[in-house]
């Protein structure tokens, strides 16, 4: 078993807000991230796929294919978007677009496509919000 990781970047805006809370509580918990006009980040997405290299091609999966999957499933929906407004997982306050929830959302978007590919499986999704902060999801609970 070998792990293959592909990096991609996207830029998006968001803010943190829990509708069940008062403005004071939102500001207390989320600080500057609660400003309703939003702010943005350059996110780096790392997608790790695990499997055995194909005996003929030597590929676990084709990197170009993985790039296209990442672009169609995640970047197409997230890049240069306002996450709270334009991305279904987060729109209408369904879910707060924290880096944790973005990693889980990306996993759910990617897993069905990766699972169909050549015996490979999605092993890990890591989302960097800034170079100093990342959230990582390996599926499951």
């Amino acid at each position, binding site marked *: 078993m070998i792990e293959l990781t592909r990096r991609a970047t996207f830029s998006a805006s968001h803010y943190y807000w829990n509708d069940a809370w008062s403005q004071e509580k939102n500001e207390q918990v989320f600080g500057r991230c609660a400003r309703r006009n939003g702010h943005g980040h350059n996110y780096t997405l790392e997608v790790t796929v695990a499997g055995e*290299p194909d005996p003929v091609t030597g590929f676990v999966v084709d990197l170009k294919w993985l790039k296209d999957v990442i672009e169609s499933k995640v970047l197409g929906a997230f890049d240069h978007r306002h996450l709270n407004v334009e991305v279904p997982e987060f729109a209408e306050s369904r879910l707060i677009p924290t880096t944790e929830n973005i990693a889980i959302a990306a996993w759910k978007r990617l897993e069905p496509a990766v699972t169909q590919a050549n015996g490979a499986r999605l092993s890990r999704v890591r989302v960097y919000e800034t170079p100093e902060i990342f959230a990582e999801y390996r599926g499951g609970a």
Partner: protein
Amino acid sequence: MLSASHRLHTDALSAGANLAAYGKCNNPHGHGHNYVIEVVAGGDVDADTGMVINLADLDEVVKREVLDRFDHANLNLDPLFASQVPTTENLCQAVFGVLKRALPTGDLEYVRVEETENNFFQYYGR
């Protein structure tokens, strides 16, 4: 880091199928990368030295076994790739194999090979 050239091509497939599978990586003249190799050793901290492994010894092994062999070389011409395509998957496993044989038993944890800043591979030997 090692700089090497390769061509992704297998005699098991037709010319058309090679081009379909490997795209521009199938260019007959080959192309190259600056591969970044990370070698991770694991183990208990030695009570006398305070080290998991002596980094100078590790450097020496990596230089002798990996860099001297693959740096500024054409991977396709290495005997390791006589019967397999030098994808980075296979390079990562090959690097793990030569290091595992050269390092004290149990020291090698995993090998990471970064082909470009946008993709890397990890092999744990299992």
